[in-house]
């Protein structure tokens, strides 16, 4: 990323962590990422506890507080597991080394972890769809998503990220659309008009396959970006499936969302009351 920003998918300039080992043998991680439900608090505590051979419960994590953490790049683009967790690992390791060298607790160490390359998870996304010719509604019959993520620090969090990301990808593929009028006035300004996917928009059958056979060589934990797995692939997979279902009509399935209005237009190109490309 050449935007001079804070780096996504494990790019520079990295993320900050500070680890303090206290007199009682517990530890505190200060991290520059903020946990809004992604599970960083749990995940960073796991990484620190494992490195220091501590019980998980003896590690606390401080985040989201600019008066307590020296610097931070924020929560986006899978920076948590790649940058923040590797920063935590390095800081914990450095603090442990100080103890081993004879320093007395409390000891602390900080790290700003950077890495030059992004760490995408390679994978595949297969989806079977049904298109209702009367309404243009696309139903997801079966969805199988398989990814090689390197290493899962917390399998529940990984699964949650993939399932949630899939929902976001389905929203982008079928529903979500910022619509503007000719004056640039936004028309989809509430959840009545901007449709988020619901439980009934998910595939009737969904299978997630997570492989941990090829740890990333780019970082000590071997982790890869997992947050983007669902949203990045859903649009292409669903779009291709819709194009395949309507292959005889050769529809221009190039721009999501593949909404009922658009699909109906592709199905009925001669009707004047539809606008197949809007």
């Amino acid at each position: 990323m050449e935007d001079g920003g804070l780096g996504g998918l494990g790019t520079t300039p990295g993320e900050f962590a500070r680890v303090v080992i206290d007199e009682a043998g517990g530890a505190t991680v200060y991290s520059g990422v903020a946990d809004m439900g992604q599970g960083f608090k749990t995940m960073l505590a796991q990484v620190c506890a494992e490195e220091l051979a501590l019980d998980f419960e003896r590690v606390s994590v401080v985040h989201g507080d600019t008066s307590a953490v020296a610097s931070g790049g924020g929560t986006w683009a899978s920076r948590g597991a790649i940058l923040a967790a590797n920063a935590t690992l390095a800081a914990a390791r450095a603090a442990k080394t100080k103890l081993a060298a004879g320093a007395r607790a409390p000891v602390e160490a900080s790290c700003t972890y950077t890495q030059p390359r992004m760490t995408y998870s390679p994978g595949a996304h297969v989806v079977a769809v049904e298109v209702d010719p009367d309404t243009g509604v696309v139903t997801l019959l079966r969805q199988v998503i398989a990814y090689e993520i390197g290493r899962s620090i917390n399998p529940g969090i990984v699964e949650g990220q993939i399932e949630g990301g899939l929902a976001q990808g389905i929203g982008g593929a079928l529903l979500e659309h910022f619509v503007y009028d000719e004056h640039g006035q936004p028309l989809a300004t509430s959840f009545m008009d901007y449709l988020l996917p619901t439980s009934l928009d998910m595939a009737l059958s969904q299978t997630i396959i997570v492989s941990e056979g090829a740890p990333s060589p780019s970082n000590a934990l071997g982790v890869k970006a997992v947050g983007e797995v669902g949203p990045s692939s859903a649009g292409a997979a669903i779009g291709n499936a819709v194009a395949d279902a309507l292959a005889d009509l050769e529809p221009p399935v190039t721009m999501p969302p593949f909404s009922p209005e658009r699909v109906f237009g592709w199905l009925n190109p001669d009707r004047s009351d539809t606008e197949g490309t809007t």
Partner: protein
Amino acid sequence: VNGARRRIALTVNGEQRSGSVEPRWTLADFLREELRLTGTHLGCEHGVCGACTVHLDGRSVRSCLVLAVQADGAEVLTVEGLATGEHLHALQQAFWDAHALQCGFCTPGFLLTATEFLHEHPDPSEQEIREAIAGYLCRCTGYVTIVRAIRAAADTLALGSAPADAA
């Protein structure tokens, strides 16, 4: 008169509560601002997301669409009333166990609607659960673990209500 306050008295989570409210206030406003029961979350404030769901006389309602004065004399259950002391409700425990929440913003609404749903459908299929929660938005989970948690809670509740000699 615009802004003139009305006195209301109601039962919230089993406790008698009262307050003076402006007629324009929603039940959600009263619960959050007056009673400081901030577990009821306001997402969209126009009845779409479901996060603000509470029970009003045993039925789930969106507290952003109910006026506080309409709740005068009613019995209200909010997410704060689900647990018994330190003991989580079966649904709360199931959500915890199944990782059915990430950011947790939508969770109170899902818990309250699922409580009512399981009361009426103690042994639901996956599809029935999906339909029951289709009016509630979650941006984190993709609903998979929420459906799983509600099904697991149904099993827990069935065990709890089974006759002792039936096991």
